């Protein structure tokens, strides 16, 4: 009898406990607090060649922060394939990190969810003011006219990386400055049996960064001035076709690259199997894959004609990483302090050197570490010929819809099918129909 009673009591207790946890699982949608002032959770994006490399770079800096403030930072490096999903889940549940890195192109989308702390004058004052940051970098921190959703952390730009030996063997004296030159050089390189140019045909974000620049060079935009998608504009169609034609018509990009999505083209370049690579701030990555710095040259991304600059001479998107504070943080003061630490001149120099990126903090840019010729190209591109991707709430959806369209066009080209203007328009029309109506 006693045993039965014990069982009954146990069952009831367990049930009550379950019911209680079920009720308690709801999200708290408060605006952040200082409940746990001694710890912080930080989600870092994967900047180095691997997650392990990032941990090695970041951990000493986090230890330094702990020494200075007594706040312990729990680091998690989140791979790119998961980062946006993780942020979405955290926003939905209210349970997330205190501080996190975001791709700067997501700023406006994530800003619209209301999950990130807005950086108004008062918050900026806590980290030394808005003026410390370069204007181009601040242009990718959220929708215009709103308080930024994040603070620039690393700035990057696309450049043309080329293998010096392959160029010399093919008798090419200088890197191509226009697309026509690139196509002509590609023919010479291909004639010698080497793959000319790498691409990540199945990587949606890479596709977007490239077609965005091509659209700019064709004098077009994917969104109208009031933020509506306009993917079927004839100039946009021509721009997307120009990029896909690098594989379909010019055969500069080998067909196999159509299924690349895990940075295989970077490995191909690092191993000397491919002459050129259009990539953002890739020096540290190439080094970790065993390519010596003397083996490759770095030049601005080609334009249609003339020299890189503003307007139709844009040759890179403003790439980079922003650091944001999660609104539901339990350590608001600590999180702000951490952002201040990460954007301090000292840390900016250390981290941007480690990741071969450019500091968005202007006072750190003048450091001699960023004056090397390779970095100079990136710095110059950012300063004079880079444009911010559309800062609209539906930017993430745009990346997916148009990125998929380009992926499918590459797949067609790889299968040997002709890619006509009508094909491109049809794919882009489908992409536009998938965009949210608002």
């Amino acid at each position, binding site marked *: 009898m006693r045993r*039965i009673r014990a*069982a*009954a009591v146990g*069952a*009831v207790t*367990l*049930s009550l406990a*379950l*019911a209680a946890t*079920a009720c308690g699982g709801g*999200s708290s*949608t408060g605006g952040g607090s200082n409940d746990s002032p001694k710890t912080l959770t930080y989600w870092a994006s994967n900047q180095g060649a691997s997650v392990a490399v990032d941990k090695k770079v970041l951990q000493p800096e986090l230890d330094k922060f702990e020494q200075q403030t007594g706040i312990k930072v729990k680091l998690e490096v989140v791979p790119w*394939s998961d980062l946006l*999903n993780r942020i*979405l889940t955290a*926003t*939905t549940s*209210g349970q997330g990190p205190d501080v996190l890195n975001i791709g700067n192109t997501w700023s406006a*989308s994530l800003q*619209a*969810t*209301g*999950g990130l702390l807005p950086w108004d004058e008062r918050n900026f004052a806590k980290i030394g003011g808005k003026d410390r940051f370069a204007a181009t970098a601040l242009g990718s921190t959220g929708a215009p006219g709103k308080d930024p959703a994040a603070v620039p952390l690393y700035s990057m730009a696309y450049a043309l990386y080329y293998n010096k030996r392959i160029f010399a063997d093919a008798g090419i004296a200088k890197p191509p400055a226009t697309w026509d030159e690139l196509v002509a050089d590609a023919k010479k390189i291909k004639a010698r049996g080497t793959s000319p140019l790498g691409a990540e*045909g*199945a990587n*949606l974000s890479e596709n977007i960064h490239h077609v965005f620049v091509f659209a700019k060079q064709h004098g077009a935009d994917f969104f109208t001035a009031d933020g509506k998608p306009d993917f079927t504009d004839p100039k946009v169609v021509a721009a997307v076709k120009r990029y896909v034609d690098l594989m379909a018509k010019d055969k500069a990009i080998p*067909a*196999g690259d*159509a*299924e690349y*999505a895990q940075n295989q083209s970077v490995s191909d370049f690092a191993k000397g199997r491919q002459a050129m690579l259009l990539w953002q701030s890739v020096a540290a990555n190439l080094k970790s894959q065993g390519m010596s710095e003397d083996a490759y040259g770095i030049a601005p991304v080609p334009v249609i004609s003339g020299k890189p600059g503003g307007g139709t001479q844009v040759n890179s998107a403003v790439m980079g990483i922003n650091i944001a504070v999660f*609104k539901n943080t339990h350590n608001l003061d600590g999180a702000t302090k951490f952002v201040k630490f990460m954007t301090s001149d000292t840390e900016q120099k250390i981290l941007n050197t480690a990741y071969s990126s450019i500091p968005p903090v202007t006072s750190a840019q003048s450091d001699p570490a960023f004056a090397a010729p390779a970095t100079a190209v990136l710095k110059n591109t950012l300063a004079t010929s880079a444009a911010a991707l559309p800062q609209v*709430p539906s930017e*993430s*959806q745009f990346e*997916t*819809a148009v*990125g*998929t369209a380009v*992926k*499918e066009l*590459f*797949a*067609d080209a*790889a*299968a040997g099918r002709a890619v006509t203007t009508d094909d491109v328009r049809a794919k882009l029309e*489908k992409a536009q*129909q*998938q965009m*949210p109506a*608002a």
Partner: protein
Amino acid sequence: MTTTALKEPARETSPGAAREPRRRTGRIRRLTLPYLLLLPALLLELLVHLVPMAIGIVMSFKQLTQFYIRDWGTAPWSGLDNYRVSVDFDAPVGKALLQSFGTTVGFTLLSVGLCWLVGTAAAVFMQDTFRGRGLLRALFLVPYALPVYAAVITWVFMFQHDNGLVNHVLHDQLHLTDKPSFWLIGDNSFYALLTVSVWKGWPFAFLIVTAGLQNIPRELYEAAALDGAGMWQRIRRITLPSLRPVNQVLVLVLFLWTFNDFNTPYVLFGKAAPEAADLISVHIYQSSFVTWNFGTGSAMSVLLLLFLLVVTGGYLLLTSRGRRAADA
């Protein structure tokens, strides 16, 4: 339980009315105890299965986009709009959903059919004892025992265009194709997906059918052999009819698993599956997570749930009626 229940009324007439209330509480206690013990399991079931489903159904009536995910309560109700968008087959969203649904149905039928066929054949061949049978059986179960991600990522490497094993064998060694084929993009992706799905699914069929075969009495086979039945006839007249109840469950389970499979296409193709292999689970994932419209995604999931309920119900009804007719 029944015996006590029967005895109890008889005892009530017996003297000792003072002890009556206590005895009644004792009876109540004995009657309620099983339910009490079931309660934790029931609540867990509610928590793990039914509550998320109910929330999903509620979400499908809301306009849950990126502007509202932080605080679901504020998302405006949208009535049947999400459903209307999903089943409007003239508009792009509905058309894509219908196409994905068709692909999924075709894929599921082929995959379940092949899994069952290969699994059953293997189980029948393994029925007689021979040297190395245990080893082979264990080997057959490896795909089923491997973690899905590890197994599928290996297939991704094998299906690669430039240095994949599949192209190496088909093109470089056997010269079956004039140039290396793409398996992970374009139209061939359907066959790649089917291959991996069958490779991953058939060991389960093999396992279940092997278990079912243990229950068929050896005498039946011996009697049939005496009557001069060949191997094929024994399979057709004894093995398959005896396996009927096992197969009924097996096919249903395989169907539900394959139809809902998310891991395989997701690991093979990433978030944007090629049109030829755009299975409905990934499609719904794309419609909700990637485009941040959880309302429409939920509506599609509810529609999928309804479809699977109808199919399962219809299947069970048909097969059990068929069995009753056969038994009669």
